[in-house]
Structure formats: structure tokens, C-alpha cells
């Protein structure tokens, strides 16, 4: 069987942000799993994401030192799935709902991490 998270992270480590897509339904899936939710379709293949998305919801986690505060967002991907991420390249509290964003793969703690930047 496929190894959903392991394979996704291997792609990310190689600089690719991948989604799953069902060959039969055409539906995109994130987070990765063994079958498409709702349909149960198991004919999932890896496809590269467009990386384009829109901020659906946003919060700012406040720290004692304002410089340490950071945003947490939900992004609606152009392909349909929604995921949690962060918008870099902008003040922590500068992110607004509806903002167009684009995916970037960066490194944090020695691990690749998917973030977004304003378009």
C-alpha cells in the first residue's frame, strides 16, 4: 500500500508540494491518505500542486515579545483542499482573509516546511 505521509514528505524534501488526485473522480486530496474522503476512491495519484491559494481564516499567536508573534492561517488551495499553514514575508498581523498567496518550501529546524507568501 502507499505510505501517504512518508511519500508526501519525501516529495517535499525534493522541493515538490504534491497533492493526491483520484483518477476516477478527479477530486484532489489533502492531507494525504489511502483513499479520497467521502467517495472512498483508492485510485489516488500524486500530482504537483499549483501552489496558488487564498487565505480562508487567520489568527495571530501573541507572544510576550511582539517580535515572536506569528500567524497561523487556513489556506484554500486552488485545487480545492484546505490546509493549515503560515504566511511569511509579511508582518505577523498583516494577513487578511481573502489574500492571494503562493506556496513556498522553506526549512525549519532542519526539516522542509510548506509555507505561503503573499502574491
Amino acid at each position, binding site marked *: 500500500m502507499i505510505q501517504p*505521509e512518508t511519500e508526501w514528505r519525501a516529495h517535499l524534501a525534493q522541493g515538490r508540494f504534491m497533492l493526491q488526485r483520484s483518477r476516477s473522480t478527479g477530486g484532489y486530496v489533502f*492531507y494525504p491518505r489511502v483513499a479520497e474522503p467521502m467517495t472512498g476512491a483508492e485510485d489516488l495519484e500524486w500530482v504537483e500542486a499549483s501552489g496558488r491559494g487564498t487565505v*480562508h*481564516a*487567520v*489568527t*495571530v*499567536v*501573541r507572544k510576550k515579545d511582539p517580535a515572536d508573534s*506569528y500567524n*497561523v*492561517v*487556513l489556506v484554500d488551495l486552488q485545487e480545492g483542499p*484546505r*490546509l*493549515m*499553514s*503560515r504566511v511569511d514575508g509579511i508582518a505577523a*498581523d498583516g494577513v487578511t*482573509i*481573502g489574500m492571494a498567496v503562493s506556496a513556498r518550501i522553506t526549512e*525549519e529546524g532542519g*526539516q522542509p*516546511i510548506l509555507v505561503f507568501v503573499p502574491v
Partner: protein
Amino acid sequence: MTRNSGFPGGKAAIVGAATFGIGKCPGVAAVDMAAQAALLALADAGIALSEVDALYTSAPYEALGGLELAEYLGITPRVTDCNRTGGSAFEVYVQQAALALDAGLIDCALIAYGSNPASNPPTGVGMTRQSAWEAPYRPLAPISSYALATSRHMHLYGTTREQLAEVAVAARRWAQLNPEAAARDPLTIDDVLAARMVSDPLTVRDCCLFNDGAAAVVMVRADRARDCATRPVPVLGAAHAVTHREISSMPDLTVTGAAISGPTAFAQAGIRPADIDVCMVYDAFTITPILFLEDLGFCAKGEGGAFVSDGNIAPGGGLAVNTNGGGLSCVHPGMYGLFLLVEATRQLRGEAGARQVKDAQLAVAHGNGGVLSSEATVVLGRG
């Protein structure tokens, strides 16, 4: 009605209810508190411990908590559950106990819970793990998830921080009428707005308490209920819906599973939201009563902010909401759902003292678990 809904409405009743150790309960284990609350609820009902043949609990730090409490009490239940639907577990237990009682599988159900995280902070590994798909972004669990839902509600419907603060202030005003409530000092809208921001737009005053507390209720069939020491509180409807685990997978951030469980439970009971006298809705954060009032049908989607304004859910307002002071000002030891049921029971029995809702006939207790993930609605009447 009951045949169509599949729920045996009115066939079972809550006959005992108790709280214990609200606020600070040091020097004991969580299971001590659950057992103490259980014995108080059984005494309230006038039922012997030996009669209990079904046990429902959700231990805070013990995955096998159902087994633990059965052992502690020295009972041998036919049905034991320690479900993991978070704070909604106890409303789910009422549903399950009503079904098992009606089927004749059991004769006496005990639902109990105790937790003292304020006095006895949990050590070691917790019972939930962070989502691999969310953890890298360091959301504060669970407040950032509720904050994200709040941001969406504000964006779509113009809900304001002042309206969120109204929820906290209303809870505090009810708490001031409840000697058992933990937080009773004055609280104003401005206090909430000026409080320390934790995860925008929610401040520390938009968050529930994190204190100690235990509660228990006892359920039997309606025929047995007539012989109990208290006025029985019949279970008229109970329904549950799960929509997701993590906030990133919530189908619609402004519509909870209460939009499924609520109408189902009201239909089982054959009533409408407008018939409700006492509305107990899980207030983990100030946004949650707004969402649940909408989803349960007390107002239209998007109008929850306006609904809670001008003291409408405070004492003397249009709808009595969270009359014990809620999770925001009375008690929230991690999972709050059972306290909703106890307060609804006390109101329907007319035992709520200074906060008593006059001639309360119908109450709803709506539990929430996870991050708006699990929603369970119980409709209670007056026997």
C-alpha cells in the same frame, strides 16, 4: 415521533445529579473526584451503588478510565464506556444510556467525571497527539483553532469583539448568582477587550476557566424514576454529529455539527428552539455560544453576535443561557459537558436558587468536543 426518530423520547430520566470540588480540589486523584460526585448523585436519587449496572465516564488522563472507575467503585457494569468525543462525551452518554435503558440492556446508568488539572497538573504524555499537518505551524491548542473559526465568523457576518465580550460578561453575571461558580468578581466588556490577547481575536477573557471539578448524573427508566427521591427529568431527545477532528478539516468554519444534532434532538422531543426555557451550550470560548445559538436554531446563521448583545443571554435577558456561569466563569476542568446536564437538571427541578429560571419546563444541554468537532444535543423536560 419517537418511532420515526429512532429515539425513545421520555422513556428514560435523569433522577440524580451532583457536582463536587468545583474550583480547587487538591490532594486527590481525578478518580477520587469522579467517585465522590457519583456517590452524591446516587444519594440524590436515593439509589444504591449496587444498583448501578452501566458506567459511563471520560477520565482525564487514563485511556482505560471506564475500567478504572468500575474497579474503584467495586461494581460490575454490563455496559461500560469511556468514549473519546471530548467535552461532548457526556451528552453522547445520555443518548447511549437512554437507548440501553429502553432496550432493557441495563437498569441504572451512572455518568461520572472528575478532573483537577489546576491542583494536580497532568504529567507525562497527554492522551491526544498533535496533527502532523498542523503542528509545524505551532497553533496553540485548542485556542488557535477556535480563533480561526472566529476570524471566519467575523469576516462573513461582521461579528465583533464586543459581541464576543458580551458572552463572557453574561456568563460572569450568571456566575455571580451561583455560589458554586469559581469566577464571580466583576467583569465588563472593556475588561474583556483590554485583556491579554492570546490568539487573535480571542483574549484570555474569551477563554474558559481551567480549574477543578467533578459531576455525575444517574439515569433510569421512567417507570423506575417515579420511585426515586427526586423529581425526574425526562430525556426527550439526544443526538450527535461528528464533522472532523482538526480545524483544517472542518467542512464550514461557521457551521458546526450542532446544525445536525440540534434539529434532530428537537424533532425527537417534538419541540422548537423557541420552546426552550434554559439553554446550556458549551462555552469553551466566547465564540462557541454564538455558533451554537445559531446552529441550534435560536437565531439565524450570522445573527449570533447580535443575539447575545445588550445582555440578551445574561440574567434578565431574553434567553437564559449558561445559568451556572458556564465554562467561562463556573467550571471547566478539561471536559465540561457533564456540568451542562447537571445545571439543566437543577433548573428543571427548580433548585437553582438565585439564578432559577422561573417555571423552567424545557432545557437543552449542548456539548462540544475537540475543536468544534463533535456536537451532541440533549433535550430535557420536567417530570
